[in-house]
């Protein structure tokens, strides 16, 4: 043994060898092609198939896109222009319809001179969610977030400024009462606060609004819900649905986690019921049945009714997302809160929910994307969604009868851009959370 060791073992390198360039064929375009496209017969076949698919796609649609016409007043004109320019057999897109009607795809029938209002509301949305979603937004602007919903409603629907102000006041009032009674225990405080708020809404808000409006009539021109359409409708429903569903979702999630059998059962029944039926049927409930469930004579706007059902729908999904967030919190957080003497609601509010909600944001964004896509279904209850409602309406015009593909492409592209951006953002957020949670 010793001799084997002796002759082979001891070795010292005296000069370190520098990096050598890789041999030819191991680098460069050829290697890349070989490795990525033509390694083995299966890959080669796949590559060829891929190229063929691209060819098919391009050869079919290239001409159509290339021959697109932007300047025309009707589909007939479009066809004429295409036939003149590219020969009688050429097919081409008639983008003129988008040019003429783009505002209806985006805003529905919202009065054009008031377009600034939804645009402003949309822009402010980012200020409102900024502190939650983007790290670079200072946390100080967070005070704006609870005000935003009222502001947005006022901007979108207009009317007296006192409506949103006094409704907001109602919530503030509830909060103040809660604080005042807080020393008698959370449950007490919550009940009293809720009762005061509800009484205020039932009996005080209406008269107060009239009163204030009579005294100081400040307001925006009001816009009826029936004027909403296109992406304005889709975004309003989507954002409104998610925003309103958050509190309900939190309550449902807590309910589902509760030790109390009855509460748990109710939560589970609600969540599973909503998740078990298609959204369309819920929309039908909104348009056909909701009036049966309300006291005779109550009657409100279809958009509001759809919003209620969309909110219920979203709440069930959000509840499941938040439940995931709650489950991800270590038990120690609950125990530490208990040991410090915080009661259930304080522990939830100060310790558990802030953390659980933060973890849930990517899930909430995904839910939002799904809901945003699903808002197109409102067309089946007679609303003008951007995908079918608005195009159908445009096609009812003599000038644009028979136009199909251009609206599909236009609307599809907008959906794609928005959703793709959001899904990328939510992925980014997920990665960030994972980094932070290590």
């Amino acid at each position, binding site marked *: 043994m010793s001799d084997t060791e002796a002759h082979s073992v001891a070795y010292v390198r005296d000069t370190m060898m520098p990096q050598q360039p890789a041999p030819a064929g191991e680098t460069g375009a050829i290697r890349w092609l070989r490795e990525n496209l033509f390694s083995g017969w299966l890959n080669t076949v796949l590559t060829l198939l891929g190229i063929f698919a691209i060819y098919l796609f391009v050869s079919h649609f290239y001409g159509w896109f290339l021959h697109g016409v932007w300047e025309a007043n009707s589909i007939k004109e479009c066809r004429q222009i295409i036939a003149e320019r590219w020969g009688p057999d050429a097919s081409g897109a008639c983008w003129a319809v988008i040019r003429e009607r783009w505002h209806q795809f985006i805003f529905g029938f919202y009065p054009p001179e008031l377009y600034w209002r939804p645009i402003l509301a949309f822009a402010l949305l980012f200020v409102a969610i900024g502190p939650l979603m983007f790290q670079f937004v200072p946390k100080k602007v967070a005070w704006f977030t609870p005000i935003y919903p009222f502001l947005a409603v006022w901007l979108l629907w207009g009317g007296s400024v006192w409506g949103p102000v006094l409704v907001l006041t109602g919530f503030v009032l509830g909060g103040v009462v809660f604080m005042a009674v807080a020393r008698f225990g959370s449950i007490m405080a919550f009940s009293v606060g809720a009762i005061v708020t509800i009484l205020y809404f039932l009996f005080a808000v209406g008269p107060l609004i009239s009163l204030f409006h009579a005294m100081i009539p400040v307001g925006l021109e009001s816009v009826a819900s029936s004027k909403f359409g296109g992406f304005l409708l889709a975004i309003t429903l989507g954002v409104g649905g998610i925003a309103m569903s958050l509190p309900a979702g939190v309550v449902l999630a807590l309910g589902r986690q509760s030790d109390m059998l009855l509460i748990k059962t109710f939560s589970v029944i609600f969540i599973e019921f909503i998740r078990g039926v298609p959204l369309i049927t819920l929309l039908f409930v909104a348009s056909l049945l909701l009036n049966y469930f309300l006291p005779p004579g109550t009657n409100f706007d279809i958009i509001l009714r759809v919003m209620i059902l969309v909110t219920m729908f979203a709440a069930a999904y959000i509840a499941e997302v938040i439940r995931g967030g709650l489950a991800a919190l270590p038990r120690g957080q609950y125990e530490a809160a208990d040991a410090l003497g915080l009661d259930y609601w304080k522990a939830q509010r100060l310790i558990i929910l802030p953390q659980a909600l933060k973890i849930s944001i990517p899930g909430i964004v995904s839910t939002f994307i799904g809901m945003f896509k699903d808002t197109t279904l409102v067309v089946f209850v007679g609303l003008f969604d951007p995908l*079918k409602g608005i195009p159908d309406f445009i096609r009812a015009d003599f000038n644009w009868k028979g136009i199909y593909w251009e609206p599909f492409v236009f609307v599809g592209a907008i959906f794609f851009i928005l959703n793709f951006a959001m899904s990328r953002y939510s992925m980014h957020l997920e990665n960030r959370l994972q980094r932070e949670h290590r």
Partner: protein
Amino acid sequence: MTTAQDASGPTGFRLSQLIYDTRYRSITIQIVVLFLVMAGVGWLVDNVIRNLNDLGKDFNYSFLWQRSGYDIGNALIPYNNDMTHGRAMLVGLINTLWVSFLGCITATFLGVIIGVLRLSKNWLVGRLMTIYVEVFRNIPVLLWILVAIALLTEAAPSPNQYRVNAQTGEAGASMVLESVAFTNRYTAIPSIHFDRTLGSLDTALAPISLDFLAIVIVLLGSYFVNKMLVNRANRVQEATGVRPPTLWKSLAIWLIPVVVLLFALGVNPEEPQLKGFNFTGGTNVSNAFVALWAGLSLYTAAFIAEIVRAGILAVSKGQTEAAFALGLRPSRTMRLVILPQALRVIIPPLISQFLNLTKNSSLAIAVGYLDLRGTLGGITLNQTGRELEAITLMMLIYLVISLLISGGMNIFNNRVKLKER
């Protein structure tokens, strides 16, 4: 409350204990909640009753036994307009289940292929599949269904164009393989015809063809014989270590009996023929169905592709390396190591996609395919004006389908859960 006080006996019971005593507190809360929920439900029910009264309507399902009076274009079980609304509902339900079932199969098939290809080392194919996934899942499924139906109605020839022009001797369009015709209203495909048919068995639901029954029985037989073969192979492998090849034998067991049976029954395809306005003879698959099916499959496939990809990626590279290092071939590694682990990750979300697809099938409304919503929740509701009854029944049926599917998923999950410390 009084009873609780009695029960508390000599230790004394103060009312404040209802709120401050951990034993009673949760009961108090639950009773309050129960009361609130009951009050809410009671309020709703009361409203419904009063509204129905005001409208002079009642709540009953007897309309399900009345004559429907309308026709359904694509019924899978015998149906005509003399049958009841209940029957029409059943036709719709079967249509819902049928399109969902086929949709799940094609979506899974496509999704698996796309998901696997997306992981392929082939740069081009990988990119193409990524584009597919991103485009399809970020655009509402309704658009895909509408695109599919528009494509079919706008691009396919009408049956008329298949007619041979007497003067020129040419037709505007020709059938694929002389047996399949794509038209702008349906796809005509051959139906199967048995020369020496065994007849059929009448049941209340639908007549069952004895020929098909025979085929199913033979296939079942093949399955059992094949299973015996595989078991024998396993035993031989256990004993000697060498697994006898079974592929050819399996193929023979599966194919030969069926072929023989088909031959005995004198099977031959009945090809669609243009007669009058339409093709007759074969089976006409309506475009509404095809569009819905295609739209749902393509859309859901994008999600399934992501699930499959995530499932495969979830099996760490170390597993493959360990298997390789043990000398397992790539195909065996896939079958024995990667797939069993990936499937555990894949199947639960896959099933919730199935659930979504089933629910999305209610978009049949966009193309006029008469599914459950189209019959019970559409025409029947309309003709009878029974919206409360029809919609609650429809929701109940969807709910039952969903619960069945997710129940199945839970059972599966518990079965395959990886054992951990």
